[in-house]
């Protein structure tokens, strides 16, 4: 059983290392909104040796959607669901040692319902070339072509997702956040969340104000506002205003 796991690990590692992005989307993921990327994962068919010399390429198409990226502190990440114990431990020590370190949280999902799979005549390079021309003709700025590895094509897609995110973070999201003054560098060269005089992260301030408005208008439950204040560790600062909401009601 252990050996099977080892073999699988090796296969995954092989697929990860041998996947290649043949065409990057011209556009990066949006810094403040959601994004959807149309992917094409190309692989050589596993039945290639039985095709009597006719070369075919398997083309899998689908979409990956990203929610707007969120600038967060380790303490905030610690309070959201979905991370393993190991990841939480890492965030916990980071939250203690460097509570202002800027991190960007990306959430994504596959829209499997529109996935399609086609067998196209031609070798992988020529098929990729044809798809790339189609993408350019359609002026689709958020389409990608990925060279995958056999039946582990989804590993190749994971590599693309990860690379797309780190590329966007480095080239666009972190610089944009710095430009807006929401993050800055500390004396150790680390990127940290900027705070106002009261110690409120600037990135949270606007969001919290709009949440107060929504609660006042009855468009949001107070508990959602409370949760958000807790995640930022800001309830103490805002508690008077929070309880005022109930007096007015």
């Amino acid at each position: 059983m252990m050996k099977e796991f080892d073999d699988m690990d090796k296969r995954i590692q092989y697929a990860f290392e041998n996947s290649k992005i043949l065409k990057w989307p011209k556009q990066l993921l949006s810094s403040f909104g959601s994004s959807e990327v149309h992917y094409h994962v190309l692989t050589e068919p596993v039945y290639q040796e039985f095709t009597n010399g006719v070369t075919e390429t398997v083309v899998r198409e689908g979409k990956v959607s990203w929610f707007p990226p969120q600038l967060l502190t380790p303490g905030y990440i610690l309070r959201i669901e979905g991370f393993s114990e190991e990841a939480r431990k890492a965030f916990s020590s980071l939250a203690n040692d460097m509570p202002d370190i800027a991190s960007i949280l990306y959430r994504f999902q596959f829209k499997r319902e529109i996935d399609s799979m086609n067998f196209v005549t031609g070798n992988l390079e020529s098929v990729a070339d044809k798809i790339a021309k189609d993408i350019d003709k359609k002026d689709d700025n958020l389409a990608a072509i990925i060279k995958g590895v056999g039946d582990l094509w989804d590993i190749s897609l994971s590599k693309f997702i990860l690379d797309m995110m780190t590329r966007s973070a480095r080239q666009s999201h972190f610089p944009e956040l710095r430009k807006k003054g929401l993050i800055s560098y500390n004396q150790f060269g680390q990127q940290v969340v900027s705070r106002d005089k009261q110690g409120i992260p600037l990135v949270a301030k606007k969001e919290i104000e709009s949440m107060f408005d929504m609660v006042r208008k009855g468009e949001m439950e107070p508990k959602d506002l409370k949760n958000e204040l807790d995640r930022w560790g800001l309830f103490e600062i805002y508690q008077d205003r929070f309880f005022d909401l109930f007096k007015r009601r």
Partner: protein
Amino acid sequence: MAYIKSALEIALEKSNNIDKLSPQEMNKIKQQEKIDNILAKYYKDQIESDDLWKHLKDVSNQFLVMAQNNFLQSLTFQSNDYEVKKRKDGILAIENLKKNNQSANIELYLEQLKNIQDEFQKNKEQVLKNLREELEKDPQKRLQTVQQGNQIVVKQLSLEEALEQNQQLKQKLNQLEEQFKRKYNMVKEELIEIINE
């Protein structure tokens, strides 16, 4: 490197076997005790290398060699400049008391040991400099990701953090250290042979 049994260990083995110690063996233990005392004072900076001469001038060649071996055993690839100098001065001070004085030769070997350590430091600094430049040029390599299902957290590491967490760097430095350690130990073995001649 062969392990040299101390006279005291030999004596204890013998006493375990209920053998009687000969006068020569008794003398050997006494001599070694005396040397250990002197070396301990020297290590604790209570006496200088010049004082070693005064304390050891009446000791036989065999025990002088033993004292030099003691210095050499405690000289390692990780020894710092102060530790190296301390041992070098000690070995050379004792060498002057030996009949077959090989100070020039020994000094040459000790220099070689120091050069190997310096060369390693230079190589290590170059490896670090190259990686630092690489990381400065390509900030993508400084991004750290934590993935859990459909959530990924991306954070940019500072240059120092990225260097600290770089596995390839750790591996490269380990290999480099092993390579220089081997060289160091080879020269040290040769030096031991010269001292024991």
